[in-house]
């Protein structure tokens, strides 16, 4: 089974802190994605990556950056956390070569105080 893991289920940070959310997949997938999920807004794509060291902006990249140094790991970085970044963050991966089904991690609920 594909497994996507996220480093924390719950995280509480203060405004202005630098925050790292880590995501690891174990199926050698090419593509990885970061979403944020807010009530009534569904899933919104922040960034995605088609290959190591490659990144593409999604629909709402402002205030975020990403890093993909290894194929299995995709990190989301909040350079200076703000209260409006309080949200559920979901990581996903997909093969990309044969099938675009995305496999999701359990999510990280981030609260910025």
């Amino acid at each position, binding site marked *: 089974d594909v497994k*996507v893991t996220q480093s924390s289920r719950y995280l509480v940070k203060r405004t202005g802190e630098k925050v790292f959310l880590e995501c690891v997949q174990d199926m050698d997938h090419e*593509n990885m*994605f970061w979403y944020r999920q807010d009530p*009534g*807004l*569904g*899933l919104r*794509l922040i960034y*995605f990556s*088609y290959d190591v060291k490659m990144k593409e902006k*999604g629909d709402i990249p402002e205030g975020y950056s990403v890093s993909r140094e290894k194929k299995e790991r995709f990190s989301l970085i909040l350079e200076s956390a703000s209260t409006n970044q309080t949200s559920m963050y*979901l990581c*996903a991966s997909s093969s*990309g070569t*044969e*099938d*675009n*089904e*995305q*496999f*999701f*991690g*359990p*999510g990280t*609920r981030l609260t910025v105080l």
Partner: protein
Amino acid sequence: AQSVTQPDIHITVSEGASLELRCNYSYGATPYLFWYVQSPGQGLQLLLKYFSGDTLVQGIKGFEAEFKRSQSSFNLRKPSVHWSDAAEYFCAVGKAFGYSTLTFGKGTMLLVSP
């Protein structure tokens, strides 16, 4: 631009009753369609997917969906709902092959009454 509309934000169904969740999509090419389910505080789990072939697709947990190209719809159905089906359901569309993101609907929250 591709888009997905789930017209119902909330639906309440009695346990044992049938269920239909609606999904309409807009996509310029042959769509690859998905239904995911999310239990409270969890990630998304795939229920079923459709790219080609039989337009009635069977998924896990007794769910099925029917693709209707003429109506640009991919509605999810279940003949008899169980209390454990209470969750949020997301429809998504993307490209079948090659590099592709998915576009998700805003979700439908299913409540199951006793």
